């Protein structure tokens, strides 16, 4: 197995009047097909670390490489392109575009990438949603779906461009226990069956215990 994410002394400091350190000297490596939990108390910097890994935020120090590529010299355009093809995000809130149906939401990253023809995108979006048990809800808009269903649409969207790495920020944080279980099972399945790497921030220690590895963050450092 090869290393997918590698960081070296990754640091993020907010440049306020009194600088706030969100992430401090984090050195880690995550291999392909790993199911990794990032845990820690609120405000410990675990989400900030995830945003750094997901290229949503720029580190103020240290190194980060994804898929063997150093991200430091990338400009905004390259970072966006990397997010589009290499990374999938699932947030605590579904963050679907409210005007579009489930299928259209899944199509959007594919359309932005533009690698497939339109009919193939339509097909693939349908298949992805069906594989997550949403075959009957393809043409519903987010406000017509339940919380768990929306979160599953969000997972389907993160898979749209078949990225090797899925980053999840409290993916079950706003769901009831039954839906949480469902979403967790899906994420686990992504690793076991589809060969994805999933890094999930969670404060649910029970859930974290069932994952391959647990990275515990306190005050921005790995503990």
């Amino acid at each position, binding site marked *: 197995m090869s290393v997918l994410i590698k960081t070296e002394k990754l640091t993020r400091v907010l440049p306020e009047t009194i600088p706030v350190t969100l992430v401090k000297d984090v050195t880690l490596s995550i291999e392909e097909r790993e199911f990794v939990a990032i845990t820690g108390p609120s405000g410990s910097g675990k*989400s900030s670390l995830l*945003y750094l890994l*997901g290229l*949503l*935020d720029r580190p103020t120090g240290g190194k980060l490489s994804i898929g063997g590529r150093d991200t430091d010299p990338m400009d*905004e*355009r390259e970072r*966006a*392109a*990397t*997010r*589009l*093809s290499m990374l999938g*995000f699932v*947030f*605590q*809130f579904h*963050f679907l*575009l*409210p*005007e*579009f149906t489930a299928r259209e939401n899944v199509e*959007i*990253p594919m*359309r*932005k*990438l533009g690698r497939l023809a339109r009919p193939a995108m339509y097909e693939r979006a349908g298949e992805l949603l069906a594989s997550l048990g949403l075959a009957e809800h393809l043409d519903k808009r987010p406000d017509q779906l339940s919380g768990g269903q929306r979160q599953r649409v969000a997972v389907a*969207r993160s898979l749209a461009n078949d990225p090797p790495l899925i980053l999840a*920020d*409290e993916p079950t*944080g706003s769901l009831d226990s039954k839906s949480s279980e469902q979403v967790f099972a899906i994420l686990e399945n992504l690793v076991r069956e589809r060969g994805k790497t999933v890094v999930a921030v969670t404060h649910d220690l029970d859930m974290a215990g069932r994952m391959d590895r647990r990275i515990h963050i306190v005050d921005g450092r790995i503990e």
Partner: protein
Amino acid sequence: MRLILDIAITHIAGRGRQTLVAVLGVAVGVGFSIAMAALMQGGQDDFVRQLVDTMPHVDITDDQRTARRQPAEDAFGAVAISGLRPRDDRRGIINPTAATAWLASWIPGRFAVSLKTQGVIRYSSREVGAAIIGIDPGHEPGVSPIVEDFVQGSFNALAAGGNNVLVGDTMAKRLGTGFGDTITVVSSEGLTRSFKIVGLFHTGTTARDEGEAYVLLKNAQILSQRPNAINEIRIKLNDPNRAPAVAHRTEAELGYKSVAWQEANESILQALIIRNIIMYTVVGAIMLVAGFGIYNIISTITHEKARDIAIMKSLGFLEADMRRMFLLEGVAIGSAGSVLGWLLGFSMVYGLSLVRFEIAATGQEMTHLPIAWSVLHYVIASAFAIGSAAVAGYLPARRAARQNPVDIIRGAT
């Protein structure tokens, strides 16, 4: 970028009423601009057409722009001469036959020669000062619109020859005379002759109706005691816009002052330019106001869609994509407003063209508003509209697109 367009359309379609108001704002602006432009341009065209129709396009008179060099000046080149009286020149255009032959060889249009002299028209005890204009009835209709303005008699009566005169109806009224009467004309040379009124014209220009009398060229030459003389050549061109070039050439060749209609009416044409500037300023102001409406709606959308912007950026959309999206929304509203405005403008212009009214002063001319139909008005109005819509969309878009997705995602969690 179909995707961006799709999302942009969804955004504005999702806010029906607000979008409608913004679109209507633009439409009203565009519509009124078009109507106003049609009226202003129509008025201007009408005005210029009247100028061009009533005036000769190039007027050659026996004047000179600068005093002729005197022989003494040529003979004593280095010496300043004072108290020199100009040599008497024979008045009138010298060698008219050669001049007209030369003109006839190349002028792209028509011309007529005439002799204008001052005189007094007398009828019983009343007298009116008048310009006595001797004309050639064969050529005059080509350069003067007067032929169509007769209320009694006709222009052709002059061609029959004899001591006949055409006068304006106002002058006849002032003299207390009428069609068929015989009046006496006294020239500035002191000669007196009787003429029979064979036509009364009404041009609508008071100076003409009151102060001009047309006789045969021969009679005018007799009255002024200048056989074969002419002092004015009036030229009508097929293309009035070529007048300055023609005037330049005739002046260079003949040496007499040649005035193109543009030169004669310079101040009026300048005033028209100022009018146009005012018009475009007002159009600009209307569009600015419509632009505020668009700014408002796009700015609201960007605020409401901050989360969508963040999520789309996190998915891999670029800042430029987001900017383009909101810019498109502004332009879409501007374009929809333009098209609606075209319809509105067209119907308003059509409505205005139906308005008829009477000019009270004469009580006989039924007329309607001068309207210019021009595609250019539509193009300019919508260019203004779409331009201001683009700016109004771009400004909030730029700010919104710059947002850092992390700030919004973090804020939501």
